[in-house]
């Protein structure tokens, strides 16, 4: 990979266009840029907000490991992962993955791979705060399908 992965774990939002420009502005060798934006849904009005807890230090280290694996498997010219933590309301962004490559399949597959690994390996935990204030917050349970999704990428 030509350039080091750009990784950020932050409370604040990110700027999609700025992150795409980081990997492609002025570049004549980038044929494909893929972005994946994960957002908070309101679950048909049942959710007031998500609280994202993370493990500082390990979050960055683990995302870096996942990014390095993607860069080893696909020919990428650039790779960005930004994951937010803290309180996030419906309609707000949670996570951004940007992949750039000369070829479309590399960019698409790497983004798919990164999201699967972020879901099940990056040390973040979501707590749902219900719209009904009387109800207590509830930790989101890991889904078996997310674990299964990783099996697709085993070499």
């Amino acid at each position, binding site marked *: 990979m030509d350039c080091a992965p750009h990784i950020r774990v932050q409370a604040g939002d990110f700027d999609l266009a700025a992150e795409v420009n980081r990997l492609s502005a002025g570049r004549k060798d980038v044929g494909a840029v893929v972005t994946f934006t994960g957002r908070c849904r309101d679950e048909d009005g049942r959710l007031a907000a998500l609280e994202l807890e993370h493990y500082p230090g390990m979050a960055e280290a683990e995302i870096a490991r996942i990014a390095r694996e993607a860069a080893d498997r696909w020919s990428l010219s650039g790779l960005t992962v930004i994951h937010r933590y803290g309180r996030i309301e419906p309609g707000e962004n949670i996570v951004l993955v940007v992949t750039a490559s000369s070829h479309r399949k590399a960019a698409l597959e790497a983004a798919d791979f990164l999201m699967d690994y972020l*879901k099940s*390996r990056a040390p973040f935990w979501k707590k749902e705060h219900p719209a009904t204030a009387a109800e207590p917050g509830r*930790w989101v*349970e890991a889904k078996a399908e997310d674990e299964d999704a990783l099996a697709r990428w085993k070499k």
Partner: protein
Amino acid sequence: MKLVYFAWVRERIGREAEDVDPPGEVKTVADLLQWLKDRGEGYAAALEHPKVIRVAINHEHVDHQTTLPRDGEIALFPPMTGG
């Protein structure tokens, strides 16, 4: 050794981190979970199903058969739900 807890493991145990000094026969991650479970109600609730608990040593995922390091930071947490 320093233990750190996250999400519902943290909430049930009732603290974010602590220093512990387990006896010599506590050699693996599995031993540590078993030993912690007997330290009180919160620990028992958090570690009721030890197989579910994910563990990282010095910021790296490990399995329950891993030998504990002499020192360093050991994190216990539920399955991750980021992304």
